[in-house]
């Protein structure tokens, strides 16, 4: 027995006692080293966590400053977009974690006095919700179509979907724009809705999930006399409920954050969602911007807090493109 590796009976050990002693010492050493490693890693993770959370936390805390405190601290930063509103501009920019005085004045102004922000928020809702709902609906059907009776034609079509999904906006927006122009839906919400609804993203993900359902389940149902509609509705959809939630969250995040599409497809700024409009807030209204920004991140944060596990699951499905 001349195993030389860690903690095993080695050549140097004459007796069993010697070996046990050495082994114990080694184990203690290992334990100490492990402790140092864990502490180090936790510290690094902590640093990353602070970096990741800081911008979000700062946005929220700054939304509780009064408008005058904001312009006193940050006026200079946003002065370049000033259109002539009189603001007091400080010499230096002070980033503050905690407001001098907690005030809800930003929120009161945004929610009660200036309806334009709420209007833009509503634009976002109007643009995003139908896309999430109908993209899922269309994708559910398509995924079922791709799952049942797989053949060469379907595989080719599915491959085209994957290629389309991988194309950046710079490529897909040109076709979208041309169609929107021919069908005269440009500058209406339909120009955003329709390409969104037929986006291949959800189809790809849901197909990958649905194909995991064993075919024997569906065949058994078929032998028992279930039609296609029944198999779809009674077997595939219930089994994919979790996946549908995950995909809905992913679609929602993506479109809630949209900038490119409205810029190109909606020339009327009245229709722009808040995600685009926020950047146009000028220095005169900078005192409100943080509250508006915070309000805008509330829906995705809520979705995140309730559906983090779904989100993680959804991202996980996405991996392994060769499915």
């Amino acid at each position, binding site marked *: 027995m001349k195993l030389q590796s860690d903690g095993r009976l080695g050549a140097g050990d004459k007796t069993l006692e010697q070996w046990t002693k050495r082994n114990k010492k080694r184990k203690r050493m290992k334990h100490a080293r492990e402790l140092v490693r864990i502490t180090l890693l*936790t510290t690094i993770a902590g640093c990353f966590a602070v970096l990741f959370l800081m911008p979000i936390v700062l946005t929220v805390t700054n939304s509780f400053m009064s408008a005058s405190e904001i312009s006193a601290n940050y006026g200079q930063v946003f002065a370049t977009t000033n259109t002539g509103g009189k603001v007091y501009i400080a010499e230096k920019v002070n980033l503050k974690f905690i407001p001098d005085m907690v005030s809800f004045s930003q929120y009161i102004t945004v929610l009660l006095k200036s309806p334009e922000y709420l209007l833009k928020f509503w634009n976002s809702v109007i643009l995003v919700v139908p896309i999430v709902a109908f993209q899922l609906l269309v994708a559910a059907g398509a995924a079922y179509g791709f799952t049942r009776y797989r053949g060469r034609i379907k595989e080719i079509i599915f491959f085209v979907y994957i290629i389309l999904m991988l194309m950046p906006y710079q490529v897909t927006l040109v076709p979208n724009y041309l169609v929107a122009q021919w069908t005269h839906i440009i500058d209406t919400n339909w120009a955003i809705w329709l390409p969104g609804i037929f986006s291949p993203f959800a189809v790809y993900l849901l197909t990958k999930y649905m194909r995991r359902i064993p075919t024997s389940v569906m065949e058994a149902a078929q032998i028992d006399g279930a039609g296609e509609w029944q198999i779809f509705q009674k077997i595939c959809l219930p089994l994919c409920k979790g996946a549908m939630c995950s995909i809905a969250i992913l679609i929602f995040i993506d479109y809630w954050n949209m900038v490119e599409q409205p810029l190109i497809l909606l020339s009327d700024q009245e229709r722009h969602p808040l995600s685009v409009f926020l950047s146009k807030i000028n220095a005169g209204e900078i005192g409100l911007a943080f509250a508006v920004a915070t309000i805008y991140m509330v829906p995705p944060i809520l979705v995140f807090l309730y559906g983090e596990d779904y989100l993680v699951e959804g991202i996980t499905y996405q991996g392994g493109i060769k499915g």
Partner: protein
Amino acid sequence: MRKNGSNRRDKKGKLMSFGYLLPSLGGVLLFFVLPFLIVIYYSMVDNPINHQFVFLDNFIMVFKNAAFLQAARNTLIFSATAVPLAVVLSLFLAMMLESKIPCRSQFRTFFLSPMMVPVASVVLIWQVLFHYNGTMNEVLAVFHLDKIDWLNSAYAQVVLVVLFLWKNLGYNMILFMAALSSMPKDILEVAVLESASPFQIFWHIKLRYMSSTILFVTIMSLINSFKVFREIYLLKGDYPYDTMYMLQHFMNNTFGRLDYQKMSAAAIMMAVVMVIIIGILFLTENYFGKDVEG
């Protein structure tokens, strides 16, 4: 008899299954595939009225366009730095959360949260941080370093990489965590028994097994790296500093001028480049991960 009947039912089912596919297929054809074919056609004619066939002239014209070259160069530099960094750092974060540190699920939540936050919401903070008199420069001043005009100098690309990493690391990390946890345990145990060093285990086993995930993360990061336009637009508007002028800016400005030819040629070139890059990535992955597939 019975076989015949099930055959007929099969055929009917097959047809019906195409029916389920139809709405999506119709939409994709109408909004993506057919117009894309027309885009190809547009890219090869001189203008939409004459329809004079000019073959590659539009592409050459785009290639000679200074703005396009600038945009392409910036996009290339940005993607070539941001994507590898995103892959390596997110792998590091994932391995960190795989080790036995406390509060792992909290850390996961923290790292993932930037993905949820709309760019528009945090852009205000970025502006304060990276302004000429902003917080970053005050930090530099503590170390007696000169002020940097972050958003209006060559450093703008650095800022962009930071913003990109901030937003995308969490997403990539989840992908890597899934790959790490689905790794076959028996092979790792054998490696430990054979007294392989942690580095050897990482390099020879884990990386090999994750090759398809690395491929996927690289592709997704590449696609997401084109979305950095959002940050730039929200920070700086239509015409940012030179080094931040990306392909999407070029496209936006061509949309504004309704120059179909330029637009189509640029879109097609991008599509071709994307297909080539993704193809190369697939081939590389196939080469390195062949023996561990399945």
